[in-house]
């Protein structure tokens, strides 16, 4: 079982915080933000590679949590619902025309370097560039799978996609990444 699927589940505590938030207790929102903002930000940053956009998405995600508190019903884990919110926000933001050139800007130089630190930087840049170059849905699927540790089923639940769609996205994404990063493998 993947770690993210089996770690201690604070679902009861999150659901209780949402109940408190619905009753108007703003400190419940503060707790939810502090508990989950790093996860939201990580997804947003990996999707956009922009600190400012990532922060914007974090804020908007929790404002949506706040707005929805009165109608929130814990049919799924809070984190799953939160992933759905941040996924939608990321995809919406990336559709903005001013971000269309993100993948072009992100290309890393391929020249070899004898310096170990410089080589590590090149490798890091190449990984980021390769992920940024993926189509948005493949990128999101990889981010949720590789970095958030979600299983195929949890990704489907978090995005609203079918499991077969998730499988297809991941197969294509990992194949592309394998080919793009061939040079940097030991």
């Amino acid at each position, binding site marked *: *079982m*993947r*770690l993210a699927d089996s770690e201690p589940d604070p679902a009861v505590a999150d659901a209780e915080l949402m109940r408190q938030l619905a009753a108007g207790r*703003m400190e419940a*929102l*503060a707790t939810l*933000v*502090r508990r989950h*903002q*790093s996860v939201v*930000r*990580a997804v947003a*940053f*990996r999707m956009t590679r922009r*600190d400012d956009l990532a*922060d914007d998405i*974090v*804020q908007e995600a*929790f*404002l949506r949590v*706040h*707005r929805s508190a009165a109608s929130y019903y814990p049919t799924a884990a809070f984190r799953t619902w939160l992933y759905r919110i941040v996924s939608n926000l990321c995809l919406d933001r990336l559709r903005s025309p001013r971000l269309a050139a993100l993948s072009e800007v992100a290309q890393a130089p391929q020249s070899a370097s004898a310096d170990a630190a410089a080589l*590590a930087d090149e*490798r*890091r840049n190449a*990984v*980021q560039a390769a*992920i940024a170059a993926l189509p948005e849905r493949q990128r999101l699927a*990889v981010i949720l*799978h*590789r*970095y958030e540790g979600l*299983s*195929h089923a949890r990704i489907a639940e978090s995005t609203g996609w079918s499991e077969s769609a998730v*499988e297809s996205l*991941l*197969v294509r994404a*990992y*194949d592309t*990444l*394998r080919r793009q*990063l061939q040079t*940097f*493998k*030991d």
Partner: protein
Amino acid sequence: MCPQDTQLIRLVAGELPEPERRALADHIARCDTCQARQRELAATWDLLGEFQVPPAGRDLAPQILARARRAGLVRSAVAVAASLVAAAGVGIAVGLATLPGAPASPVAQTQPAVTEQQAIHAAGLDALGAEPLGFDELFVMGEEPQ
């Protein structure tokens, strides 16, 4: 039989239940092609780990709370205004209907009773920028009498 790519992905990601993992591992141990496939995928998986997220420059909770409180105040103000309008609308309809000898007003006849809850819900839709505007759904003007 060689596994599909999705099964190898699940194996490398540690998603497979133990019996399935063992069966796949047994096959891979006997299959050069699948060994190479797994090796490539595992190397890609490890390399992807280089994408680290820089720590956030600041705690966003205070800013989020401030925005949420402002939004909450706006929604409350709109809800109060909405309930006042709704009450006024009901008052007018009742007043028109109770005037002695007054003909039945087409507005009073066509205007459905609006509860405070409906008015607050409509105000909420307006606050979220929903279309059509909440009030438009509630206050549909009847035709003028000929």
